[in-house]
């Protein structure tokens, strides 16, 4: 089970937030300046090597950030230890599953 002491979890949450903020701002800017107008343009945009790396990193950051945040919500409100012992692993499992999905999408994107 992934355990993070207080400081490490907090730091991870901040670091992933900074990366995601930068990615979102740049991505939105790209969409506003030159929105993809067809499947080919969209697919082309997302299959560049740099874009794949940045996007996979974005989702890694997102899922880790979500883990820290949702774990905080559970730690704050769920005081029954047995319930926590079920919820947190389920959460972790769900996030890992989503991560695997992302990897699958971008593994095969280049064709």
């Amino acid at each position: 089970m992934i355990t993070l002491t207080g400081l490490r979890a907090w730091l991870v949450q901040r670091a992933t937030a900074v990366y995601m903020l930068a990615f979102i701002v740049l991505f939105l800017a790209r969409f506003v300046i030159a929105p993809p107008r067809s499947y080919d343009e969209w697919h082309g945009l997302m299959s560049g090597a740099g874009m794949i790396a940045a996007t996979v990193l974005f989702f890694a950051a997102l899922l880790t950030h979500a883990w820290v945040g949702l774990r905080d919500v559970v730690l704050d409100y769920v005081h029954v230890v047995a319930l926590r012992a079920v919820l947190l692993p389920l959460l972790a499992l769900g996030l890992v599953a989503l991560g695997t999905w992302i990897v699958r999408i971008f593994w095969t994107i280049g064709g």
Partner: protein
Amino acid sequence: MATRTTSATKRQRPVFLDLTQIEMPVGALASIGHRLSGVVLATGVPFGIYLLDRSLRSPQAYRWVLGLCDDIAFRIAAIVFVWALSHHLLAGTRHLLSDVDIGSQLPAARRSAWIANIGGVAIALLAAGAWL
């Protein structure tokens, strides 16, 4: 109030914790909004990844995803997500700056909380105006 003959010390002491009677300062609103928007965003991630997946599979699937934008329920959900993302980003940036001692004193903190709270709603209203 009934008169009791049993020992009063045995009973558990009550607490006052009625949230409807306790003041929620602007920073507290920003904070609970940050948590709520975070949970909303988290619940939307699986569907978001699904849409991403489909949109990249084939031109037909891509068109299907775009077609969703005509659906009114989808538009309303999208506006909720716009609020969630805007508030989460604004309140989150406020936290990041506060962490390095920028705007962490009370007067500045109150102002930035107002901006985060109003900003999120304003952006969502803009989206609603454009999409509804």
